[in-house]
C-alpha cells in the first residue's frame, strides 16, 4: 500500500501564483484543499524564496492567509502518474497518493533553452535558471555574467544576479530595437508593468542593453571562459564566468496530457485548452496560469482564482474575474508578438552541437531520421531523465516535430517508490502508471 493517501475536495498541482490563488478561492468556499509541489518552498518560480532576501511581499501574505484557511501543502512532492481521481506522488523515496474531487493544474512553465555551440559547458545556464540558482545561494559575488536570449525575464534575471553581487556585463536581447520600443510604448495600458519595468531599468541603469543581439557560442575547455555574441551584426567575444541565456518560456503540459486534456498550439509549443471557467476538456479538471499559455503572474493569479471558484461550483464568483483575465491576457498577447524569435537563432547549433544533453546526441545524428519517434528510437534523443523537456521543446522550436512520446511516469521514479504505488492501483489498471 502507498505509505500515505491524502484525501481532499480540490487538489492543486503547483504552488506558484496560479496554484496558491486557486487554493485561496477554493478554500474560501470551505473546500478541503491540498496543494502539491516539487520545490522545498511554495511560490513557484516568480515568487521563489530567496535565501538572502526571503520571498516577495505578496507571496508571503498569500501563504500566511492559506495557512490560516487550513490549506494543506505537500512540498518536495512530484506528481508522476494517475488512475481515475487518484494522483500518484513521489516524495523523495516515498510513495504517496492524493484522492481528489476536482483537480486544478497550475503546473507553470519552464524555460525555452536553444542549443548553440558550447551550451553544455558548466557556467551556461538559463536566464530564469540563473535567477532561480541565485535565489538558491549560487555563488555570484564579483562573478562576471552575460545575460542573453529574449523577453522581459532577461531584465528580471539581471536585476536578481546583480542584487547577489554579480557583475552583469551586458543584456543581449534578440528582438529588434523596434520591437522592444513598441513593447515599451504600449506598457502605459498596464501601469503595474510599467512601474515594474521602470524599477528594473533603474536597478540596471549602467548595464548595457543591446537589442538585435544574440549569443553565437560559448567558449571554454571544460567550463565556460567566454561568450561570442552577435552585436550590431558583428561577432564580439566577451570573457565571463557565467552566461545566463534563455529564449522565453514553454508551458508544462505533461500532466494535462497524461490526464487526457485537450491541448492547443501557440506556434511550436502546446498549452492546455480551457473554457471561460478554466475547465479543461476533462470534466472536473481545471487549469490556470502558464499551463494555459504564457501570460505571467497577473494571468496566473486571476486564472487561479477563476479555477478555484469554478472547481467548487461557484460560477458567480468566477465570473466576476473575467474582465481582469481579459486584460491580463491582452498583455500576454503583446509579449508574444513583440519578442518573437529571430529565425537566425535556429541556425546557431552546428553538426557537433549536442542537442539532447541527457544522452549526448549531436545535431548531426538526427539528420538521417524523421523528426519525432524515429529519431528518438534510433538516437535516444529525448529518452533521458528529462524526458525531452529540454531537447524536445528546443527541436519543436527549431522546426522539427512537436514534442511527443509522453508516457507515464511523467518524471523518473525509483523502483522502490514505484513499488510503493503497487497496491494503490485499482485492479486491472496497472498499465496506467
Amino acid at each position: 500500500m502507498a505509505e500515505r493517501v491524502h484525501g481532499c475536495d480540490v487538489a492543486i498541482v503547483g504552488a506558484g501564483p496560479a496554484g496558491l490563488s486557486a487554493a485561496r478561492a477554493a478554500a474560501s468556499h470551505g473546500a478541503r484543499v491540498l496543494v502539491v509541489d516539487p520545490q522545498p518552498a511554495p511560490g513557484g518560480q516568480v515568487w521563489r524564496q530567496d535565501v538572502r532576501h526571503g520571498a516577495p511581499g505578496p507571496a508571503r501574505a498569500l501563504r500566511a492567509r492559506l495557512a490560516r484557511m487550513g490549506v494543506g501543502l505537500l512540498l518536495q512532492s512530484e506528481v508522476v502518474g494517475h488512475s481515475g481521481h487518484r494522483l500518484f506522488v513521489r516524495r523523495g523515496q516515498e510513495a504517496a497518493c492524493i484522492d481528489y474531487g476536482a483537480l486544478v493544474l497550475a503546473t507553470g512553465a519552464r524555460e525555452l533553452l536553444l542549443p548553440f555551440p558550447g551550451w553544455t559547458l558548466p557556467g551556461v545556464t538559463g536566464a530564469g535558471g540563473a535567477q532561480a540558482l541565485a535565489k538558491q545561494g549560487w555563488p555570484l559575488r564579483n562573478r562576471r555574467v552575460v545575460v542573453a536570449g529574449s523577453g522581459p525575464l532577461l531584465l528580471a534575471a539581471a536585476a536578481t544576479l546583480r542584487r547577489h553581487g554579480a557583475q552583469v556585463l551586458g543584456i543581449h536581447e534578440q528582438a529588434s530595437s523596434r520591437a522592444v520600443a513598441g513593447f515599451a510604448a504600449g506598457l502605459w495600458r498596464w501601469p503595474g508593468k510599467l512601474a515594474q519595468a521602470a524599477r528594473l531599468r533603474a536597478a540596471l541603469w549602467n548595464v548595457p542593453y543591446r537589442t538585435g543581439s544574440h549569443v553565437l557560442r560559448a567558449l571554454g575547455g571544460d567550463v565556460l571562459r567566454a561568450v561570442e555574441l552577435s552585436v550590431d551584426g558583428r561577432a564580439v567575444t566577451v570573457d565571463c564566468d557565467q552566461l545566463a541565456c534563455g529564449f522565453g518560456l514553454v508551458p508544462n503540459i505533461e500532466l494535462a496530457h497524461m490526464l487526457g486534456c485537450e491541448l492547443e498550439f501557440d506556434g511550436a509549443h502546446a498549452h492546455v485548452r480551457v473554457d471561460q471557467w478554466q475547465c479543461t476538456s476533462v470534466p472536473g479538471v481545471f487549469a490556470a496560469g502558464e499551463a494555459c499559455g504564457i501570460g505571467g503572474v497577473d494571468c496566473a493569479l486571476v486564472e487561479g482564482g477563476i479555477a478555484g471558484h469554478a472547481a467548487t461550483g461557484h460560477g458567480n464568483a468566477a465570473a466576476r474575474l473575467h474582465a481582469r483575465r481579459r486584460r491580463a491576457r491582452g498583455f500576454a498577447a503583446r509579449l508574444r508578438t513583440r519578442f518573437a524569435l529571430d529565425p537566425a537563432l535556429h541556425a546557431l547549433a552546428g553538426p557537433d552541437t549536442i542537442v539532447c544533453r541527457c544522452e549526448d546526441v549531436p545535431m548531426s545524428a538526427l539528420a538521417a531520421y524523421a523528426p519525432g519517434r524515429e529519431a528518438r528510437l534510433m538516437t535516444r534523443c529525448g529518452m533521458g531523465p528529462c524526458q525531452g523537456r529540454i531537447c524536445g521543446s528546443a527541436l519543436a522550436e527549431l522546426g522539427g516535430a512537436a514534442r511527443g512520446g509522453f508516457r507515464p511516469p511523467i518524471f523518473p521514479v525509483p523502483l522502490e517508490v514505484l513499488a510503493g504505488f503497487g497496491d494503490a492501483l485499482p485492479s486491472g489498471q496497472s498499465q496506467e502508471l
Partner: protein
Amino acid sequence: MGALTAMVRLRVDGHEVEVVAGSSVAAAIAHAGATARASVSGQRRTALCGMGVCFECRATVDGRAQQRTCLLPVAEGMEVRTRG
C-alpha cells in the same frame, strides 16, 4: 547578508563548504568549485535550469545517487559526491 544569516556546513567530495541556510545542494557544489555530473560521453555538467526539469545537476547525496541537487536544500553534515 548580515551577521545573523545562519550558515550550514556540509562536504562536497570530501571538502568542507559553508553556505547560507536554505541554499540548494546545487549551490553548495558550485561554492566548492565542483560540477555535478559527468555526461554519458564524459563531459562535465552542472545546473542549467535551476528548477528541477533538466536533470543536469544530479549528484549523489548522503549515499543516494541521481538526486536533482537544485531541488534539495542543504543540511548540516551532508555528504555530497559529484562525478564532475
